[in-house]
C-alpha cells in the first residue's frame, strides 16, 4: 500500500517535472526573444504556447541515428544515465513543509552524489559516440564539472555550519520565517560562489564550453538525434531546476514567504525557483562565453579561496555570537 502511494506520488511529480521542462524551454525562448527584440515562437497556438508540445511530438517521431562506429550499448544507455541521476535528485527536495518524497538526513550530500554520477552519462556519451567532437566535448565537460564541484560543495559548508544539518527540510526550517533571517545575508560570499559554480555545473552560458557550438559543433551530444537527444535536453533542464531548488533551499529560505498562501504551500518555493531560472536565462541573453583557460582559472584560483574564506568567516562569526 505504501509502495503504491509512493509510486503514485512519483508519477505525479514526473508529469509535473516533464511539463516544467517543456515550458521552461518555451519560457527561455520567449524571454531571450524579447530581450533581443524578437517575438520568439508565435505560430503554434496562441503566442506559441503549444510549441513545446509540438517539439516533443516531433522529437519522438524523429529518426534515431546510431553512428556505425559507435560503441552501441554505451551509446544507447548514456542519455538514460543523465536523465535518471537528475530525476532522482528531485526525490529529496522539499517543495513545501512535508512535501518531500524521501526526507533523508543526508539530502544535500545525496544531491552532490547524483550530480557527480550525471557526469558519467556525459563522459560515456562522449566516448561511446567515437567522434572527435563528442570526445573532446565529453572530456571538457568532465573537467569543468569536477572543477566546479569543489567550489559548489565548499560554498554550502557555511550553510551546513549555520543549520547544523544536511537535511534539506531542517535547513529550511532553521532559517525561520522572516525575510531577514535567510542565509543569503550571513552567507553572501557563499551565495556568490554557489551561483557561479551552479552555472558551471549545469553547463549554462557563460560556461557552456562543453557544447561551444563555434568550436565543438555540439560537444558530447553531436552524434545524438531524436528522442535520445531530447533525453539529454531534459536532463539539462531538470539539472537547472535541481540547482535552482538547492539555491532556494539553502540561501533563500525555501518555501517560507512573507505570508502563507492557503491551499498551495509550495507557492513561494516555486516562485523563487522560477526567479533563479529567469536569472539563468537572463545571463544567457546577456553574457558571452568564457574561454576554457579562463574558466579553469576562475574556478581554481578565485572561487576555492573565496569559499574557504567564507568558511573561516562563518566559523569566527559563530564563535563570536556564542
Amino acid at each position, binding site marked *: 500500500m505504501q*509502495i503504491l502511494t*509512493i509510486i503514485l*506520488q*512519483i*508519477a505525479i511529480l514526473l508529469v509535473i517535472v516533464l511539463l516544467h521542462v517543456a515550458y521552461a524551454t518555451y519560457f527561455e525562448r520567449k524571454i531571450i526573444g524579447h530581450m533581443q527584440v524578437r517575438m520568439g515562437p508565435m505560430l503554434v497556438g496562441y503566442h506559441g504556447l503549444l510549441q513545446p508540445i509540438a517539439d516533443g511530438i516531433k522529437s*519522438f*517521431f524523429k*529518426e*534515431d541515428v*546510431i*553512428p*556505425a*562506429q559507435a560503441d552501441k550499448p554505451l551509446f544507447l544507455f548514456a542519455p*538514460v544515465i543523465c*536523465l*535518471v541521476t537528475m*530525476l*532522482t535528485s*528531485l*526525490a529529496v527536495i522539499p517543495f513545501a513543509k512535508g512535501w518531500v*518524497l*524521501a*526526507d*533523508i538526513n543526508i539530502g544535500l*550530500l*545525496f544531491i552532490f552524489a547524483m550530480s557527480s554520477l550525471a557526469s558519467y552519462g556525459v563522459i560515456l556519451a562522449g566516448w561511446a*559516440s*567515437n567522434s*572527435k567532437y563528442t*570526445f573532446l566535448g565529453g572530456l571538457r565537460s*568532465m*573537467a569543468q564539472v*569536477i572543477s566546479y*564541484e*569543489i567550489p559548489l*560543495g*565548499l560554498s554550502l*559548508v*557555511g550553510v*551546513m*555550519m549555520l543549520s*547544523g*544539518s544536511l537535511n534539506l527540510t531542517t535547513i529550511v526550517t532553521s532559517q525561520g520565517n522572516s525575510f531577514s533571517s535567510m542565509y543569503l545575508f550571513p552567507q553572501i560570499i557563499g551565495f556568490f560562489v554557489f551561483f557561479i559554480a551552479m552555472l558551471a555545473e549545469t553547463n549554462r552560458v557563460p560556461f557552456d564550453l562543453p557544447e561551444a557550438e563555434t568550436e565543438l*559543433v555540439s560537444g558530447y551530444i*553531436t*552524434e545524438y538525434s*531524436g*528522442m*535520445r537527444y531530447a*533525453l539529454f535536453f531534459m536532463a539539462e533542464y531538470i539539472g537547472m531546476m535541481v540547482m535552482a531548488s538547492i539555491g532556494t533551499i539553502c540561501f533563500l529560505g525555501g518555501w517560507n514567504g512573507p505570508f502563507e498562501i492557503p491551499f498551495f504551500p509550495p507557492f513561494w518555493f516555486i516562485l523563487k525557483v522560477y526567479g533563479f531560472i529567469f536569472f539563468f536565462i537572463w545571463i544567457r541573453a546577456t553574457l558571452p562565453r568564457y574561454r*576554457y*583557460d579562463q574558466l*579553469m*582559472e576562475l574556478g581554481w*584560483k578565485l572561487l576555492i579561496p573565496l569559499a574557504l574564506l567564507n*568558511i573561516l568567516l562563518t566559523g*569566527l562569526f*559563530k*564563535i563570536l555570537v*556564542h
Partner: protein
Amino acid sequence: MSGSYLPGEYLAILIFIVLGIAFGVVTLWVGQFFRMKRPYLEKLVAYESGNLPTEEPRMRFSVKFYLVAILFIVFDVEAIYLYSWALVYDQLGMFALIEMFIFIVFLLVGYLYGWKKGALQWEK
C-alpha cells in the same frame, strides 16, 4: 538521530530510480515502432563538417585533464571532511575552528605549491 541504518525513506529513492530508468527506456523503446528508420552510409559516419573523418577519433589528449582529476580528488576529499566537521561545529566550538584552521593551512601550502608550479594554470 536514533534509528535504524536502513530508513524507510530510501525506499522512495529506490522506486524513483527504477521508475526513472523505466521512463527513459520505455520512451525510447515505444518510439522504435513509430519513428522512421532509413540508415545509409553517409548518415552513419561520424560528423566532421561533411567530410569523411580523418584520423582516429579517440586521439591523445592533453595531460592537463589528468592533472585536474588528481587535484579534484585532493580537494573533494577535503570537502567531504569539511561536511562532517561543519555538522558538529556547534558542539565543538573554538577547538574545532583551530583544528580545521591548521588542517586548511596544511592544505593551502599544497595549494600554493600547485599554484606556483602552474598546475592551476591552463595556458602557460
